């Protein structure tokens, strides 16, 4: 017995939004994780970025890729001073989405990455793990390619001594 979905009743922007969620949520989450070094905060940020995308869905040009918009929005949300203050006042509980084994591994990695600044972590993750060109990563992080290279170099030096 198949379930029929009335596709005609769903707006095109709504479909595009759902597709952006399915395709890019892991990328948005990893970017948020690199910036915050905090699993629960990264999940929270990713959800809030998608809420912003939902609210803006009728004003966006969906012919362009949604990922850069999402990453820039995530960075802006992450640098929000009120958000930082709120998290400092109320430290988040351990994330429920992590099982114990992965949580223990995450704590080790987070400790090693903790010596890096958000921009150093994000620059390193975006270029070394996600494989983004320096220019594109710099655009998302709101800096120049030269500054990004310097941040990556500093990050590697710090990690070697970690």
């Amino acid at each position, binding site marked *: 017995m198949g379930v029929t979905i009335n596709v005609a009743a769903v707006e095109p922007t709504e479909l595009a*939004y*759902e597709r952006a*969620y399915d395709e890019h*949520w*892991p990328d948005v*989450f*990893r970017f948020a*994780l690199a910036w915050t070094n905090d*699993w629960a905060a990264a*999940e*929270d940020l990713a*959800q*809030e970025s*998608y*809420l912003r995308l*939902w*609210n803006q869905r009728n004003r966006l040009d969906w012919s362009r890729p949604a990922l850069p918009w999402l990453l820039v929005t995530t960075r802006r949300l992450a640098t929000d001073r009120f958000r930082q203050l709120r998290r400092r006042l109320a430290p988040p509980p351990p994330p429920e*989405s992590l099982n114990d084994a*992965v949580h223990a*591994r*995450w704590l*080790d*990695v987070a400790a*090693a*990455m903790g010596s890096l600044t958000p921009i150093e972590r994000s620059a*390193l*993750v975006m270029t*070394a*793990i996600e494989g983004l060109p320096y220019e594109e990563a710099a655009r998302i992080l709101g800096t120049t390619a030269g500054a990004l290279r310097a941040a990556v170099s500093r*990050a*590697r030096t710090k*990690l*070697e001594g*970690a």
Partner: protein
Amino acid sequence: MEPTRSDQILDEWSSVARSATPPGPPPHAATTGVAGAGISLAGAAVLVVALVAAFAVLGNRPSQSGPAGLPTASPSPSPSVAVAIPAPPTPEPTSTSHRRRRRRRRRRGDAAPKSPPAPARR
């Protein structure tokens, strides 16, 4: 070639981070599962409780305006404020009225009284 310490950390970071899964269906505006929305709902609930409590306290207080909302006499009279109202200035006689009086006296044959000395100007 042996991987460097930074490469090992990044490999582990990537492995752990890729185990993350979306927490549920995509969030929509109507979804209130976000922490911020939860806080605002809790704040609204606290506000409603505070308002109800305030109305209850005010409702139990003895009324100061007497039954049926009529104003009662206050126990102590309110102090009256004495306001000094200056008297309206009397119009000074003008030079034309002086001339008329002199003419009338001349007609009657009276001698004109001496006019008071003019006040020295400061």
